[in-house]
């Protein structure tokens, strides 16, 4: 009985940890990369002021292509 409860808790814990990891990964994936004429590149990750302005605009572009 104790073993089965421990196994169940282990599975639930693993699932929660996995979900948290996936959420964190997807949050990290959001970024804006800007490329300039001189060859330089600026990468703005989610949370930076520049990315906060560009990400909603990009989401708007994607929604417009999908007609939603």
């Amino acid at each position, binding site marked *: 009985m104790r073993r089965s409860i421990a196994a169940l808790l282990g599975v639930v814990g693993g699932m929660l940890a996995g979900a948290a990891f996936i959420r964190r990964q*997807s949050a990290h*994936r*959001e*970024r*804006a*990369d*800007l*490329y*300039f*004429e*001189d060859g*330089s590149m*600026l990468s*703005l990750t989610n949370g930076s002021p*520049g990315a906060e*302005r*560009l*990400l909603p*605009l*990009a*989401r*708007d*572009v*994607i*929604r*417009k*292509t999908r*007609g939603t």
Partner: protein
Amino acid sequence: MDAQQALADLTEISSQIQAAVVFDDTGKVAAATLADSTRADDLAQAASGLLAAADAVKTGESALTQLEVATGEGNVFVVRAGKTVIAATTGSKPTAGLVFYDLKSALRNVKPTSAPAKKPAATRKKTATAAKKKTAARKPTTRKKQDET
């Protein structure tokens, strides 16, 4: 090449691209993969807004030529060459280098038609060269005839 044809080639070559639009710096749409022109106009305006916002973010003197924004819903790519801009959307985790390469190739194909002033000059040159060739071709035949007689 026609802008619409360039986009048709682009979507055929790159399976990653879901939608694309070509427009100028005024926001006028030259071609789009979307059938509805109103939606194409909206897309061009949204992409133009994104480009303007990215221009405002830049820190140095150098001009912004291309950008990629990755969101949870998909990615947006914008490439600018002079006054012509191409914007495209893809799914998540695309091969960014390949998408940029394909967009630049499409933009190169579109560019000649977006500059119609160059066309008559090229035609004139061709006709002038053709006329020269014709006269050059005629001269030896006349000479031959004279030689023969």
